[in-house]
């Protein structure tokens, strides 16, 4: 407590107020509790999921100090291994073949494409024992495979059983020799002998990884420099720090977005505290004035109200932390570690209590409550005691114009913040812009109330109830603004999110229609490094009933050690008309003679600054190949970047004629359901089992289902923010109406009927709902523009077209008007239930 505040008096005042109005205190504290709970829960889940993901990764990577990784699934030449082994400072080095693989006995399924997948690792146990001991188990021999516990479960196999693994387009049967004791419980890993891996999966002379352990006296910087000079174009050096950054970047924007959404709920809770404190201060104006008269200094009164806010925040935060821990447990068991976002694989992260983050979130809750109490506290401290002592509540002069400039300044600052670039790859100023716009919008409410009511006020001959309601709202815009801030905050946040999601979903749907023009799509699982060769392509193309077939090769390229790989998609693109296959954004550049054109997704612009007209160096065919960025296309599938290239160029540069996907158009008279089995029969035996066929409608529906699932938590957080806002509105209306009991008593004395007072309150509520709803809609649309054009591109590196859900707007506005009028009427009924005469004589 600040110096000069009498502690005993402060305690008496605080406890007295809480005892007198427990429901209001509980409501405000609950609002903070829910916000803190959501923030803490989301943080706990994110942190735990990330931690278990990192543990899973480190169990694959072992205790290596650094790694050389292949830029493409084709790997790099194993000649690099002895050269690096001889470098000073390198104590041990373990060569690794690492391939995405799947079990042949689990058929790929379009709805569960992840099932049956494992990471196949081939290593030399004698080398690996010194670098990655967690990957070394009981020797399994040439025909044996060691599985992690997660892999055994995922593949539904027991030790001693046979299992056929498919990787790089080839398959081979193994006996399950045992379990990897040191592997993470989350990671599906299969370990075999390196020679077996190279021989049976077409990797002779190739490696995907070199795990390096440094000597105790080695200089890591010098070793790193020496390794870098020896690296071929198709390999890159990764350090544990780069790994950590890559793991973090994988889901960082999604996590930050979720945490910001949780903070939105807390912010809405803050508005509820503001509204509760404002009303409390207005109601207790004469009490505070008495304290000032009796000798409480101005600053001590300010501190008193702030301490009340802090106490509310503390109570809410403590409850919120407990709720958050429980919520996190439930969320993880129901939605998984990524809360439906699809960033992390299977596996339920372990949740423990985290005292540090708990203290941070509790602190945020207390600060939000104190900041929300600041304005009411200043108002209480600024009141003239002699005047406030004789009035019950704030008396404003109806002729005084409401101040517009504070809100205008906040709105302008919000606009400026929206124009700022990302910080550390995150739209932090974008979020700040949202908060400033929200605060600015709320701050302009007193002026806006008058602006919106001005046309109504000029009307003559209005019914007395409506006339009285208009006069009150006009005369006390500050009080109206207190009630409105909850409506405006929750409505604008809901509208902003709804517009963003509607725009995103609509754009994704358009994109799906554009990228899925064919009748059937074929995807070959585990085709990395292998796939359908030209003979197989010809056989597939000759299947009766096919009108045309377009083959695609998709290859992940690792362009930076600290970023997830980008996808190179080689497809039959017409250089002169790339828009026929790609959903282009902007006009493509003409390709200079002799250049190899590529078209990059929007994420490449953000992550690699791959602007049209610039050149990129891509690791293709064992060399770094210069390519010309000819245009940008929209891609919602790969957040970390994709590059499209003409397949003829890819074959020329890589010598890889294999294909991993195909888009098939059937002849008009062909039955699609019969064509698919025919296509499967036309595939080589090794690939037929790994073929995944999809039809556009089914794929589109599945994509939108995934979209909705990944936004489920967003919808839930948004709904909670709105509920808090609406509860705040109800609490505010109720408190304001009850505080006017004497006014109603006076009106009853001079001949206004109960029905007329009820109508007046209903009209006030409806007008407030209408004004708040309209302001919230307008503010929400502005905020949605920040979400769509700032937050989303900076977080996820894609753009979208704005779509306004007018139907939702209409429903929302109607619901708000009805809810506000209903709440005001209900509260009014309570206020009018007492004796009107007693109400007039009631003191305090």
């Amino acid at each position, binding site marked *: 407590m600040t110096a*000069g505040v*009498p*502690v*005993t*008096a402060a305690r*008496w*005042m605080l406890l*007295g*107020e809480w*005892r*007198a109005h427990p429901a209001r205190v509980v409501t405000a504290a609950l609002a903070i509790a829910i916000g803190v709970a959501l923030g803490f829960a989301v943080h706990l889940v994110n942190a735990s999921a990330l931690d278990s993901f990192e543990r899973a990764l480190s169990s694959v990577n072992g205790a290596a100090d650094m790694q050389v990784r292949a830029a493409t699934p084709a790997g790099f030449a194993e000649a690099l291994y002895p050269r690096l082994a001889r470098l000073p400072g390198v104590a041990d080095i373990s060569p690794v073949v690492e391939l995405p693989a799947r079990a042949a006995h689990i058929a790929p399924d379009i709805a569960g494409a992840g099932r049956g997948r494992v990471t196949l690792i081939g290593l030399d146990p004698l080398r690996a024992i010194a670098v990655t001991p967690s990957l070394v188990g009981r020797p399994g021999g040439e025909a044996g495979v060691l599985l992690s516990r997660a892999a055994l479960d995922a593949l539904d196999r027991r030790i001693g059983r046979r299992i056929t693994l498919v990787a790089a387009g080839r398959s081979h049967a193994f006996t399950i020799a045992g379990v990897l004791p040191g592997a993470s419980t989350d990671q599906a890993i299969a370990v075999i002998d390196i020679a077996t891996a190279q021989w049976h999966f077409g990797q002779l002379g190739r490696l995907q990884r070199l795990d390096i352990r440094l000597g105790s006296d080695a200089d890591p910087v010098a070793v790193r420099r020496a390794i870098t000079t020896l690296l071929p174009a198709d390999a890159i050096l990764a350090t544990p720090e780069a790994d950590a950054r890559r793991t973090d970047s994988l889901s960082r924007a999604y996590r930050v977005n979720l945490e910001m959404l949780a903070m939105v709920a807390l912010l809405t809770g803050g508005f509820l505290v503001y509204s509760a404190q404002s009303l409390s201060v207005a109601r207790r104006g*004469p*009490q505070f004035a*008495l*304290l*000032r*008269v*009796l*000798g*409480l*200094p*101005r*600053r001590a009164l300010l501190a008193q109200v702030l301490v009340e806010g802090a106490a509310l925040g503390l109570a809410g935060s403590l409850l919120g932390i407990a709720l958050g821990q429980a919520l996190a447990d439930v969320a993880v068991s129901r939605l998984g570690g990524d809360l439906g976002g699809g960033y992390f694989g299977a596996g339920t992260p372990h949740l423990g209590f985290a005292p540090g983050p708990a203290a941070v979130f509790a602190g945020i809750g207390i600060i939000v409550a104190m900041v929300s109490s600041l304005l009411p506290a200043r108002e209480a401290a600024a009141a*003239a*005691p*002699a005047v406030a*002592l*004789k009035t019950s509540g704030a008396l404003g002069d109806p002729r005084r114009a409401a101040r517009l400039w504070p809100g205008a300044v906040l709105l302008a600052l919000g606009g400026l913040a929206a124009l700022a670039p990302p910080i550390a790859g995150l739209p932090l100023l974008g979020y700040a812009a949202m908060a400033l716009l929200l605060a600015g919008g709320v701050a302009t409410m007193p002026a806006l109330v008058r602006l919106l009511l001005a046309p109504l006020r000029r009307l003559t001959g209005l019914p007395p109830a409506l006339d009285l309601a208009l006069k009150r709202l006009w005369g006390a815009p500050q009080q109206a603004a207190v009630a409105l801030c909850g409506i405006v905050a929750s409505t604008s946040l809901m509208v902003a999110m709804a517009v963003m999601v509607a725009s995103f979903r609509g754009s994704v749907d358009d994109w799906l229609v554009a990228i899925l023009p064919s009748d059937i799509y074929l995807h070959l699982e585990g085709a990395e490094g292998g796939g359908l060769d030209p003979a197989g392509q010809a056989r597939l193309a000759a299947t009766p009933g096919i009108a045309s077939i377009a083959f695609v090769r998709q290859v992940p390229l690792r362009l930076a050690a600290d970023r997830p790989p980008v996808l190179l998609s080689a497809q039959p693109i017409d250089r002169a008309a790339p828009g026929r296959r790609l959903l282009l954004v902007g006009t493509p550049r003409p390709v200079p003679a002799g250049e190899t054109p590529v078209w990059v997704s929007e994420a490449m612009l953000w992550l690699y600054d791959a602007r049209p007209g610039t050149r990129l160096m891509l690791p293709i065919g064992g060399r770094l190949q210069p390519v010309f960025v000819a245009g940008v296309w929209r891609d919602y599938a790969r957040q970390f970047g994709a590059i499209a290239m003409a397949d003829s160029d890819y074959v020329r540069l890589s010598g890889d004629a294999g294909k991993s996907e195909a888009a098939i158009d059937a002849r008009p008279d062909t039955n699609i359901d019969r064509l698919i089995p025919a296509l499967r029969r036309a595939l080589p035996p090794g690939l037929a089992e790994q073929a995944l066929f999809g039809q556009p409608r089914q794929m589109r529906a599945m994509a939108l289902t995934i979209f909705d699932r990944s936004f489920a938590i967003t919808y839930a957080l948004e709904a909670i923010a709105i509920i808090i806002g609406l509860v705040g509105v109800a609490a505010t209306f109720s408190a304001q109406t009850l505080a006017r009991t004497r006014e109603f008593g006076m009106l009853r004395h001079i001949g206004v009927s109960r029905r007329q007072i009820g109508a007046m309150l209903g009209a006030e509520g409806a007008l407030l709902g209408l004004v708040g709803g309209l302001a919230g809609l307008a503010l929400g649309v502005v905020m949605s523009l920040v979400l769509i054009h700032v937050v989303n591109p900076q977080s996820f590196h894609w753009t979208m077209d704005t779509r306004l859900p007018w139907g939702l707007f209409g429903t929302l506005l109607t619901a708000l008007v009805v809810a506000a009028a209903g709440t005001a009427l209900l509260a009014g009924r309570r206020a009018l239930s007492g004796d009107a005469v007693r109400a007039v004589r009631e*003191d*305090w």
Partner: protein
Amino acid sequence: MPAPLPPALSVSGLTKALPGGRVLFSGLDLIVAPGEIIAIMGESGIGKSTLLNLIAGLDRPDNGSIAIAGDTLAGLSDDAATRLRRDRLGFVFQAFHILPHLTLAQNIALPLVLAHQGAAVALPAAHAMLAKIGLAGRGDDYPAQLSGGELQRIAIARALIHRPALILADEPTGNLDPETAERILALLLAEARSTGAAAVIVTHSDRAAAIADRVLVLTGAGLVPRAT
């Protein structure tokens, strides 16, 4: 020989005009001796309450000076004026102004706890005051359980508990029936006498004025003794 006590209240050349320009009083002088009780009467709107606000340091005069027990208000900061009010003044209001969420004992003890005294000191003193005003044993009751007369007794106890030099009472019997008013005035007089506090009572009531040592009337020309 001990030095003579300074006046409980010394007002000199006080001038105050309303924001519209109407002059309420100009060059007003008033001396209240320690322990003296004076009553100020006058028409509604003449400026009686404004005069009390000026004496309490809640409003600033346009000219002139005010001293409470020798301490001049002029030039005091808001905090210093607040401290002076807390230590030297007691207040009794027409509308009682008892905090509804505090117990009776806590209400009475407020001036002490505002002066940073702990509850262990303040509450026993408040219970002792309750006994003096005839409400012994009711310290843990809340104001809602009391009548108007009882509430005003609480207000008087609160005004005196910290032994102020001067009590400012604004229409202390305005909300009470004649009999209760009589008893309240007697209590105020007795308690002021027993603590040695001076009092300025602003009132329209002749009965209230009757307890005063001097009765002054505020007019446009200033404070004048009431004709007997």
